[in-house]
């Protein structure tokens, strides 16, 4: 079997977080726009035999919603979505995310696409996994320029959950909402605590010995390159071609 792609390692790491027995159960997971690696992680969990319902907002044929994204938000409001993924142009050490931009509002420096549903989903979903491949001081900042969605809220504000973890191209962080701080959980191969500190703009906690993020098992790789890719080909042809070397069948 050919070498593990970084995207495959990230998908396997996300799948382990999805299935974490210490977290609230993920019976129904929703995946939003332009999220091929989180989608691969969800399919990996499902194809590994775990009974998880997946609602992929951007699936074209057989889209799960008959009222578009409105139904996704209503489902989440009802408490029927257990886990969602969010990213950010900037993410800070209190797990605030910024999808607006830098510089003066609304992003006179660099404008990001916009907040999507994050300001709602982050508060209304029991579990959020933050995911951003780029791990650099420009993305992981001490304090976001603008808050699209806050990592923690005052006690009187209705909130079902917050970040479980932040997964990047260099490592996996756990989030502790009581402390509003990240803890380094594992470093991907080739990274160390020092290399991660150098590329992280915010302060975080770390264990004395930092574990290495495990590679996907050969069974996981076979699933990713086979049935997971089959499911993703229509929505993410470019990703499937690049990562799994699979071209779309016309």
């Amino acid at each position: 079997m050919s070498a593990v792609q970084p995207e495959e390692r990230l998908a396997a790491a996300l799948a382990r977080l999805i299935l974490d027995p210490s977290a609230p159960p993920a019976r129904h997971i929703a995946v939003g726009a332009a999220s091929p690696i989180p989608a691969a992680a969800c399919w990996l969990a499902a194809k590994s035999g775990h009974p998880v319902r997946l609602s992929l907002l951007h699936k074209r044929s057989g889209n799960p919603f008959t009222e578009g994204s409105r139904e996704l938000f209503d489902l989440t409001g009802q408490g029927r979505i257990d886990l969602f993924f969010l990213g950010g142009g900037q993410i800070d050490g209190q797990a605030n995310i910024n999808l607006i931009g830098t510089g003066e509002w609304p992003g006179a420096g660099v404008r990001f696409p916009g907040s999507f549903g994050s300001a709602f989903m982050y508060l209304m979903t029991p579990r959020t996994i933050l995911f951003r491949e780029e791990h650099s001081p420009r993305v992981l900042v001490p304090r976001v320029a603008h808050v699209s969605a806050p990592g923690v809220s005052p006690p009187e504000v209705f909130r079902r959950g917050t970040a479980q973890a932040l997964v990047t191209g260099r490592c996996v962080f756990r989030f502790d909402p009581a402390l509003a701080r990240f803890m380094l959980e594992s470093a991907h191969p080739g990274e160390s605590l020092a290399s991660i500190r150098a590329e992280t703009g915010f302060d975080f906690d770390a264990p004395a010995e930092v574990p290495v993020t495990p590679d996907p098992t050969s069974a996981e790789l076979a699933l990713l390159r086979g049935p997971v890719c089959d499911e993703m080909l229509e929505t993410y042809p470019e990703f499937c071609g690049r990562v799994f070397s699979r071209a779309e069948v016309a």
Partner: protein
Amino acid sequence: MTPSSLEALAASVPDGALLALPPDNSLPSVALAKALVRRGARGLRLLGVPVSGFATDLLIGAGCVAEVETSAVSLGEAGFAPRFSAAVRAGSITVRDATCPAIHTMLQAAEKGVPFMPLRGVIGSDILAHRPDWRVVQNPMSVAPDPILVVPALHPDVAAIHAVMADKEGNLWVGRRRECATLAHAARRLLATVERVVPGNLLEDERLAAGTISATYVEAFAVAERGAHPVALLDEYGFDAAYVAAYARAARTEEGFRAWAEEHVFGRAASARAAAE
């Protein structure tokens, strides 16, 4: 209802109108957006329902837009929307940032005919600080402190969608994209382009009725084959990723955008232009 023409639909959208467009996966009328560029529309206020994509970037690039209210503007796998980004940098458009469920909720309030609706979440987002029209109030049903967001009803002047088919009555079939019905209910005027006109009455077919928007809400429609292109249309045709990627590359610069629009909106090929010059 007699089918109209695409250019007549575009002519009926006044400069300065609040124009609602669905996102790239939910039946936007790209054909009407291109016709608005051809008619030289100005000062449009665009509403992304709840986000914005290809048609919005095109209208901004062509100088048709004064303001965008949306939860995000993106070209999907082709990346950031280049003309939107340039316009924000230049300060040539006003952006009113929202978050997706707030836009749906504002339209749902409009379709119910109530002045506002509450929505959970959002508190703690900086979006709120920039939306004086959104308020946080105490939940009147609770004795415990429970702040909750209320958002006002929003009635777009015009909504533009591309449906698969219309019947002779003017009923439109949108399949599973029933969120377009909420937009139709909330908007003061619904203009639609369609792939084709079919005989009979869609509402008399039990299997099609649920995916049908009643002609009650439809002001006018025109036939525009492949009117959603390059966006996907249900199971009729897929997303044209190569077309959007080529647009994204060209539209990185103002000149590139103009050349692209000359060819793909005005139908003047580069070679013909060269010959004329």
